[in-house]
């Protein structure tokens, strides 16, 4: 009986430990996602800064985001105003298939999806879950890329020129 009970205690402790580790991992995932949103925010402001005197405006507001693993939390949403058009960079979430995060840049005439993937990724990886323990595999270097509209599948590198092109496209169409 004692051995059986000892086994029970060890089993329950292991489950609790796994759950704690899982919760920590989710918290780390969320923190990484929020820091990458901040990095995108900085990138966008750097790229658009030169056009502020001509009338472009950027602002950031915190919006509620709900994901199954985390519940509801606040994430930054960038808003770009050009003339009468407002373009929002809406944070979609970090618990996705084949990616570590997504932001949808939506304007009055279209949408462009920015995706957080490893720097070397050229197409979707489908390697999101289950995640290996951090000590087993180093987290890849994550960067923002543009997710093409299906049926195209190759990611487009996010550069200043491409971003400005996409911004014009979601405002003017085409």
């Amino acid at each position, binding site marked *: 009986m004692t051995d059986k009970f000892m086994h029970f205690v060890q089993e329950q402790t292991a489950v609790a430990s796994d759950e704690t580790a899982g919760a920590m991992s989710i918290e780390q995932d969320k923190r990484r996602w929020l820091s990458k949103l901040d990095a995108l925010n900085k990138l966008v402001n750097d790229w658009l800064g030169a056009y502020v005197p001509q009338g472009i405006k950027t602002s950031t507001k915190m919006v509620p985001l709900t994901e199954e693993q985390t519940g509801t939390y606040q994430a930054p949403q960038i808003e770009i105003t050009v003339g009468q058009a407002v373009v929002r960079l809406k944070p979609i979430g970090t618990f996705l298939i084949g990616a570590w995060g997504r932001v949808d840049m939506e304007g009055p005439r279209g949408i462009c999806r920015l995706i957080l993937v490893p720097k070397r990724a050229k197409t979707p990886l489908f390697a*999101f879950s289950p995640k290996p323990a951090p000590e087993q595999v180093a987290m890849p270097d994550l960067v923002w890329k543009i997710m093409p509209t299906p*049926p195209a*599948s190759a990611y487009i590198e996010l550069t200043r020129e491409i971003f400005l092109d996409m911004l014009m496209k979601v405002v003017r169409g085409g």
Partner: protein
Amino acid sequence: MVGKVSLSDQMLTLPDVARHYSAVTAATYDFFSNPDPAMLFAHPSLAGYIGLSVDVVRSKVLTEIDHISALSALSCVEAVVRTDYLRRAYNKEKSKISRALRAIYQVKEERARLDDDLLLCWRDNSNVSNLLVGELIGAFRYRNWLAHGRYWTPKFGRRYDFSTVYPLADAFLTSIC
């Protein structure tokens, strides 16, 4: 006519679904880009949306297009998997996957389950990655939620939409064809 099931010639391909999605999405953005909201809401098709902003209505319409397109993309996968299953069952091919699918057919014939029978058979008897099949089975839970009227609160563990489902469907069909 192949074997017992009469196959139609009405199957959509994934690129068909993608083209339809792009056309309808672009048309929706164009429709809502009218700078005068009063003019826009005078359109008879928007009579049921009185009291909502243009952004909210557009978002609702786009969300439905997205769901329907995701449903359609995953239905394409099911059609390909099932017609391939029947073809292998009827044609008595010798490959490992053909033999495994035929063994299922001998027991279940046309009643084989998509996820528990056919997709797991592909996982266990081909070079299609376990991860890809696992992700696809997860996506079919989303498809089932859509197909059955979304009446329960889903717990998928991740977000699904057309943009996430399409590359998954495409990768799987590329792997098996």
